[in-house]
């Protein structure tokens, strides 16, 4: 009982989300005309409260503490990801409304907010899990709630088809992962990640090492699905295209960040040993080699496939696959700097990708199109929106002085400092960044230079939407002025809880 009470005190953001989720469902059930406004207010209040509570965990979690008998942990890394994930959900609710998304127009509000809070809650659990039972449960909870969010446009064929594809790929990948986890449990005799690390660090025969190595293949399937890495990326373009754009924007940042958090926990926390410089592999199981191949394939496939896309949502889907490849460089580096690079990259990615999807939503609201060719002449109709989109795209390319550059800088630096045998990998990443520049610049060329749509009416922009776009564009630039603080927070957040 004391264990539960002690844990609950360190579990406040999740408890707040649970209460908020129930309240939103309850308010929606009343059927009163004010329920939509109240539901939205409750959602924003819940997420903001959880964010405050997560920040307040910082001192308590600075040394790391295990909660609920080792099922989950509160540590600086977890708090960093909690704040990031809650910020992603909060931004999604504030930026995308039922008014500025043509796809969500006329659909129920309450269910949407309830699902969003549910995904947020499971994202938080995922970032905090320290046991393979918890890892699998939170991963499936994120997936199942996301399937429903993708199918939110009930009468729309594309939305339902996207959801079904998402679900089938998810079921197969997580099924393979579960089989791998069951074998890992059989070999190590424990479900706790730190205990698995202890076991692997002990005396292991060459045969056992090979067996554990093979199970990491199976387990990587689940992580690969969650972050959309090749060859588990096939769902990504279809789902991003078919889902309502606000859902696409949310899925492209939040579950991806949670997926990388759980990858850090699993690979750094159980298959490696913490150190000051590059970490040691537990039981010399060489999984970075495997992830390096996955990462190079991911960025190459994502970038090359994006070159020929004309649907903006699909293009951004392939772009997000490529970005998952870059972020994975931080896992492969297997060092403090690699993890810090990932965290900075994910935080930067939040602002640039949400911004790009917000502009796509606003253009769809006005013109009803996702086709890149219909963006021709946008600069003459909506100059400010085009400039903001340009900032988001430059940030995605990774051009200084935008935050996207800082993310790339840190992960590439982490790879380069690992020594000459990693340099080909950094070169592959750089070549990919150059390929990516082509299709991002192509969007800008279409918007600014290409002629077309002269007869279309002017582009009225609601004040709230204009302000949101402006603030996001500013968020892609301003962090550089507070860089030492941000970098310091990321560095302090690197401690993983390693005890029992």
């Amino acid at each position, binding site marked *: 009982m004391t264990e539960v009470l002690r844990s609950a005190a360190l579990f406040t953001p999740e408890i707040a989300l649970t209460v908020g989720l129930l309240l939103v469902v309850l308010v929606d059930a009343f059927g009163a005309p004010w329920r939509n406004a109240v539901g939205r207010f409750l959602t924003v209040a819940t997420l903001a409260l959880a964010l405050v509570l997560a920040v307040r965990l910082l001192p308590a979690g600075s040394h790391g503490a295990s909660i609920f008998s080792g099922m989950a942990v509160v540590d600086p890394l977890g708090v960093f990801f909690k704040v990031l994930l809650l910020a992603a959900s909060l931004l999604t609710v504030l930026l995308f409304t039922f008014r500025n998304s043509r796809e969500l127009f006329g659909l129920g509000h309450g269910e949407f907010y309830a699902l969003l809070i549910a995904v947020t809650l499971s994202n938080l659990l995922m970032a905090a899990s320290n046991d393979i039972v918890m890892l699998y449960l939170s991963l*499936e909870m994120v997936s*199942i709630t996301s399937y429903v969010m993708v199918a939110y446009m009930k009468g729309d064929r594309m939305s339902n088809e996207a959801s*079904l594809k998402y679900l*089938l790929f998810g079921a197969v990948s997580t*099924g393979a992962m579960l*089989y791998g986890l069951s074998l890992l*449990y059989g070999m190590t005799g424990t479900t706790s990640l730190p205990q698995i690390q202890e076991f692997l660090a002990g005396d292991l025969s060459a045969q056992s090492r090979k067996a554990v190595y093979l199970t990491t293949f199976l387990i990587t399937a689940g992580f690969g699905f969650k972050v959309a890495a090749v060859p588990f990326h096939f769902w990504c373009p*279809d789902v991003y295209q078919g889902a309502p754009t606000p859902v696409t924007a949310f899925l492209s940042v939040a579950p991806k960040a949670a997926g990388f958090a759980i990858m850090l926990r699993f690979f750094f926390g159980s298959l490696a040993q913490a150190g000051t410089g590059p970490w040691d592999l537990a039981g010399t199981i060489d999984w970075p080699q495997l992830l390096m191949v996955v990462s190079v394939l991911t960025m190459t496939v994502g970038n090359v496939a994006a070159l020929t896309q004309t649907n903006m949502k699909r293009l951004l889907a392939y772009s997000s696959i490529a970005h998952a490849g870059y972020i994975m460089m931080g896992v492969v580096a297997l060092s403090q700097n690699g993890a810090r690079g990932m965290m900075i990259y994910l935080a930067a990615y939040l602002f640039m990708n949400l911004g790009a999807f917000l502009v796509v939503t606003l253009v769809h609201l006005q013109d009803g199109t996702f086709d890149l060719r219909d963006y021709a002449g946008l600069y003459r109709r909506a100059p400010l929106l085009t400039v903001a989109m340009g900032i988001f795209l430059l940030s995605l390319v990774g051009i200084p002085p935008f935050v996207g550059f800082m993310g790339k800088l840190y992960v590439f630096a982490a790879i380069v400092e690992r020594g000459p045998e990693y340099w080909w990998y950094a070169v592959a990443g750089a070549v990919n960044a150059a390929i990516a520049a082509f299709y991002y610049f192509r969007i800008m060329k279409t918007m600014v230079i290409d002629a077309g749509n002269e007869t279309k009416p002017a582009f009225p922009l609601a004040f709230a939407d204009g302000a949101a776009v402006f603030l996001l564009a500013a968020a892609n630039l301003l962090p550089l002025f507070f860089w030492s603080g941000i970098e310091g927070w990321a560095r302090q957040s690197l401690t993983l809880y390693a005890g029992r």
Partner: protein
Amino acid sequence: MTAITLPHYLVVSAALFSLGMLGILTRRNAVNVLMGVELVLNSANLNLVAFSRFGPGNLNGQLFAVFVIVIAAAEVAVALAIVLTLYRLRRTPNLDEADILKG
């Protein structure tokens, strides 16, 4: 008459896993594919329970299996709901006819 030991369970579970994957990859009907998914999840359950019984002597594996059963039920509930809405829209449960998203 030999006793049933851990390897017997592992062979059965590996067979179940392979059959499940085969079903997922070859069936056209969405409901049949979901049955394949169930086989895959249950093969892992069999592993977990067998390891728990013959292995380290803790109950973590059996506990894990109970959670997996719950997750499988939730997943199939959502999956069938989506298959049903798709069936209402397209009048077919076949997966290869769900092909409007591509490129």
